[in-house]
């Protein structure tokens, strides 16, 4: 007589085992991430082109001293990068004096440069002398519109309350941004929208918005032929760019600090605007720009190439798979037991489903940013956010799968004399397999998509080329991230459908 070769318990153990293998194989990668010894110098940059270009230049300069240096580019906004510097996750980045005074130290009265240096010093941060250009905020609109409406100064906007203003979300929120600008000029505008800086240029061109915030060194000002409005009440302070680095870098890598100092005064406004124009309008890769700059300025030979497209995709794939693999595996291991408890005890079920449900309602971008104070930037907070995000579908489906089992089957199992654990392992979980797998599949697909946002907090993955592509208006680059992400989501779906065929007991198919 033939006996069933693979018991139901065996199959279930198989699923859990496979998930564990994925988790463990990804773990060493995660461990490397946290290795603290012989740490390379890490330069950061904000998510706009000038910051990335300057980050590349600083990184290449650090490497020219023989030090190992990496560049964590496109790290969201000021708060993320500043906090990363304070926490030591990055060692240096380029900041602007106005931002330091009006945003980072907004709650303090800092008068002269000495005050600013003192405030930085309290935080263990050293500032180099200004790089040579002032990238102030400004408001701009299309030259033809400006002429037509007779708007030349910010004060003139008062006469045109119907104009649509489109600002970066950071500008809407900053101490020196929209709220104080509105008060300073008594601006009456109601229709104020938050949008990405690079997309705002396209919005301005298409007429979707009328006025936007500009960085005065933006190359697009000339490209789109924009009128820059005079700040006639002197609202915006000066934004002199300067390099910030952690005080401990002076001991760890004194050569790097000396190299950083060579940038002081080396970037007058015309040079910076030129670099921005080459990056954004001519689509020259930032690394090549940095190499060219160092070559002409200091005669330093720096590698100009960047990763080939194939190895770039391979790297992003590895990063993305790591984010998804670790967070999803952990979610499976945590959510199935939670789902079992929720399915068995109605009262705990309410609590567990309530809490995981609330987590699910937090917008994914917000969840990523919430993790930063707890876990810093990079892979760990992204994995934690994705893990939390993946819980609900699995918990809910596990619980529903267990509750959906016919009561006479539960009674049969009890009457046979099976212990609680054996009933769960031999009868209830196998009977709930379909529902549980469907939950994991849902989580996986959501996870693959949400992981693209991880690039905003320095976790890399397919979101990185998408982010850079949006910044540079490079559709090819956007697709380089978007297509594999979509393919991965479909593959995850297919994988779990195959797993269902394999893992689902024959009697339930």
């Amino acid at each position, binding site marked *: 007589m033939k006996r069933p070769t693979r018991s139901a318990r065996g199959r279930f153990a198989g699923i859990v085992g496979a998930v564990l293998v994925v988790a463990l194989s990804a773990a060493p990668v995660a461990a490397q991430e946290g290795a603290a010894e012989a740490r390379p110098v890490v330069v950061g940059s904000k998510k706009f082109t000038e910051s990335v270009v300057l980050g590349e230049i600083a990184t290449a300069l650090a490497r020219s001293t023989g030090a190992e240096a990496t560049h964590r580019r496109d790290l969201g906004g000021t708060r993320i990068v500043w906090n990363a510097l304070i926490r030591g996750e990055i060692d240096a980045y380029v900041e602007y004096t106005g931002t330091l005074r009006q945003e980072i130290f907004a709650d303090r009265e800092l008068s002269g440069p000495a005050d600013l240096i003192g405030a930085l010093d309290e935080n263990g941060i050293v500032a180099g002398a200004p790089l040579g250009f002032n990238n102030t905020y400004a408001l701009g609109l299309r030259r033809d519109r400006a002429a037509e409406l007779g708007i030349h100064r910010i004060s003139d906007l008062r006469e045109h309350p119907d104009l649509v203003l489109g600002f970066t979300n950071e500008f809407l929120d900053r101490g020196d941004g929209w709220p104080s600008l509105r008060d300073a000029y008594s601006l009456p505008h109601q229709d104020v929208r938050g949008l990405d800086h690079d997309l705002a240029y396209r919005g301005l061109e298409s007429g979707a918005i009328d006025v936007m915030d500009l960085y005065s060194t933006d190359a697009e000002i000339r490209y789109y032929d924009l009128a820059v409005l005079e700040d006639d009440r002197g609202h915006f302070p000066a934004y002199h760019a300067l390099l910030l680095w952690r005080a401990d870098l002076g001991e760890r890598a004194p050569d790097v600090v000396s190299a950083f100092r060579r940038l002081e005064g080396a970037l007058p406004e015309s040079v910076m605007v030129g670099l921005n124009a080459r990056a954004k309008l001519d689509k020259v890769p930032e690394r090549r720009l940095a190499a060219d700059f160092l070559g002409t300025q200091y005669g330093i030979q720096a590698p100009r190439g960047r990763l080939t497209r194939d190895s770039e995709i391979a790297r992003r794939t590895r990063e993305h798979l790591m984010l998804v693999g670790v967070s999803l595996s952990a979610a499976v291991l945590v959510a199935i037991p939670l789902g079992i408890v929720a399915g068995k005890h109605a009262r705990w079920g309410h609590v567990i489903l309530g809490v995981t449900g609330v987590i699910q309602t937090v917008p994914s971008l917000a969840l990523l940013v919430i993790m930063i104070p707890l876990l810093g930037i990079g892979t760990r907070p992204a994995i934690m956010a994705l893990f939390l995000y993946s819980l609900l579908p699995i918990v809910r489906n596990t619980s529903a799968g267990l509750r959906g089992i016919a009561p006479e089957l539960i*009674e049969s199992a009890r*009457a046979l004399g099976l212990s609680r654990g054996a009933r769960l392992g031999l009868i209830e979980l196998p009977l709930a397999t379909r529902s549980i797998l469907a939950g994991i599949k849902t989580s996986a697909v959501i996870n693959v998509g949400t992981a693209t946002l991880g690039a905003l907090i320095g976790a890399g993955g397919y979101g990185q080329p998408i982010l850079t592509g949006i910044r540079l208006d490079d559709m090819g680059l956007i697709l380089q991230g978007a297509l594999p992400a979509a393919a991965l989501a479909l593959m995850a779906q297919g994988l779990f459908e195959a797993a269902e065929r394999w893992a689902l007991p024959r009697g339930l198919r």
Partner: protein
Amino acid sequence: MRVDRFTARRQQTLVLIGASGSGKSTLLRLMVGLITPDTGTLHFGKDPITPATIQALRRRMGYVIQEGGLFPHLTAAANITLMARHVGWPPAKVEDRLRELVALTEFPPDGLDRLPRELSGGQRQRVSLMRALMLDPDVLFLDEPLGALDPMIRATLQEELRTIFRVLNKTVVMVTHDLGEARYFADEIVLLHEGRIVQRGTFEDLAGSPATPYVTQFLQAQAVPA
């Protein structure tokens, strides 16, 4: 429901009968420990049935329910041998016992590798019976074991079941709503009504000297020729 001092006799077939809602299934479920009484105690032999003892005692009880309650994800053989494998019987012993039961119930051996949904209703009830008998229990409890079957199969299976009970010579407690079936199987019948035992005795006792007018009423309603 309320029942005072009630005992099933060893090696006899006791049938609990009554209209739906009379409490016959509840009494059976109390006996197998699926529900616990609000007051009072139950004993299995000399052992009290408590939440602490029920797990072990259940291995000395066989329980068959109306639809069979077979696990849909397991083959017939896996359903039958589940408990034996779980309590760690050696494979050879499991195999021998399975062969015995297949012979006893005249179950087609090629049906053993089928899933419950691939079996007929009568075959499913045989599998359910084999599962209940696997650990060779002291008492066999059956809750409407033939209730879901059509009349022809039901008649055949009744005969087979009675033969099996004779061969096994075990204590059997069976619930049915069908007086003919009760009479066919029972050494003793217990008639329940509204949660109480109305009368206990052979069919002839119930028909000849009914304890209350309800007994006569119940017997006449089912119109079994005496």
